[in-house]
């Protein structure tokens, strides 16, 4: 046991610590950027679905269905190996200026999670009784104002717990980016393990790091859920 902690200390300083910290940074960046893409796109998807134009809603339904039924790893591979290869050559050259692994990982994870987020928001909105919007309209509010003051605040409150659950999923899914070579926490851990042969110690650190962030998000979700239950019970 003592040896275990001595070895932990060995990993937690110098170049190995730098590698792991770099990994954590990249993981958080991946999560943050793809979260922003996912949220923006999800809001757009929900708005399109609410218009009830048949072709548009079918397209959105197809989008959601594809991203929910194809494994995220396959989506990542399709983007990184597949889509990248059919882009025009000039664009491929231009893309080579950036870190393409990171870019495609963010795109794939963001697009995938947008499908889940949009479903969360939609079911949150659907749970609001029709009377709410009718009452708001009857009070003389226009569509935009009734959305802004009556429907959306309640809808977002309804969907927050599941949005947070799926944020945890997004955070965990960033680990898939290692398969296309993004040096995030899992990849960095493997590197440290390769150099030091301290298998248990390096995976222990990574697991603890993942767990800390996930539990933080889960606790936040549980807290919000409890708080809203109280508000709704009133």
């Amino acid at each position, binding site marked *: 046991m003592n040896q275990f902690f001595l070895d932990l200390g060995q990993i937690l300083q110098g170049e190995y610590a730098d590698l792991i910290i770099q990994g954590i940074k990249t993981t958080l960046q991946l999560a943050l950027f793809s979260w922003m893409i996912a949220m923006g796109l999800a809001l757009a998807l929900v708005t399109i679905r609410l218009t009830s134009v048949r072709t548009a809603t079918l397209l959105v339904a197809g989008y959601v*269905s*594809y991203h*929910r*039924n*194809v*494994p*995220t*790893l*396959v*989506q990542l*591979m*399709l983007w990184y*190996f*597949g*889509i990248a*290869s*059919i882009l025009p050559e000039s664009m491929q050259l231009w893309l080579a200026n950036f870190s393409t692994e990171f870019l495609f990982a963010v795109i794939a994870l963001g697009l995938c999670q947008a499908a889940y987020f949009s479903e969360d928001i939609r079911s949150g909105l659907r749970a609001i009784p029709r009377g709410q919007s009718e009452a708001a309209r009857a009070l003389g509010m226009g569509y935009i104002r009734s959305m802004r003051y009556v429907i959306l605040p309640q809808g977002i409150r309804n969907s927050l717990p599941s949005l947070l659950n799926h944020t*945890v999923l997004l955070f*965990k*899914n*960033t*680990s*898939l980016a*290692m*398969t296309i070579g993004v040096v995030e926490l*899992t990849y960095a*851990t*493997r590197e440290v393990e390769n150099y030091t042969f301290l*298998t*248990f110690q390096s*995976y222990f650190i*990574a*697991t603890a790091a*993942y*767990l800390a962030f*996930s*539990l933080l998000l*889960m606790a936040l979700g549980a807290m919000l859920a409890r708080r809203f239950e109280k508000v709704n019970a009133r």
Partner: protein
Amino acid sequence: MFDIFHILRDNWELFLLGQYPYGPLGGLVNTLILASLALVIAFPLSLLLTMARISPFRILRYPATVWVYVLRGVPLIMVIFWTYFLVPTLIGRNVSGFTTMLCTLVVYQSAYLCEIVRGGIQALPSGQYEASRALGLGYFRTTAWVILPQALYNSLPSLISQFISIIKETTLGYVINVQEMTFAANQVNNQLLTKPFQVFFILAITYYILCYGLTQLAQWFEHRIDKKRQGSVDIASVEQP
């Protein structure tokens, strides 16, 4: 786009069975075997875990809760690597990628299935439990004859959804070279080299058809269960004065 049909014509056996007659079984069939085995083994484990998680004894409840939270808070890849190193150390000999992946999925899914079963049990009216205890059944008989049959029947759709998740999770076997469909697609891609989009498109579509079909099945079950529950409620309310 016709490339897709050429690739399918030349490689369908690899996608479906891996190198089977000449090598280990792989491809879609192995994906399905892996997922089914994982569900079949993880399910009874998750029942025990649920019983521990809702039991009144702290000594059972706390470890089960920690187990569930830790596994749900860690990416699957991390669990795969832990299994990859821990299982050979524990049993003292090397194990195949398939076994490693199976152990991983069982461990990981036990936590998720536990929450599903727990949800199913908590959704039952507490009168069920009280009535059965009042009839003189003990804790174990109440659980086995009254609570679990109803709870499991109600959670059937979620179980199918979970099977879909497991199918999607088997793709991660790719990082430890498990011979399943994603692995097969990568083999095809490495042979062809020039058609990555087409190959991975075939892969995505195959998963889509498989999982979409199962989603529909889950929805069908959900409707059926809803109808059945609705039906029994109606009869009860008619009989009331």
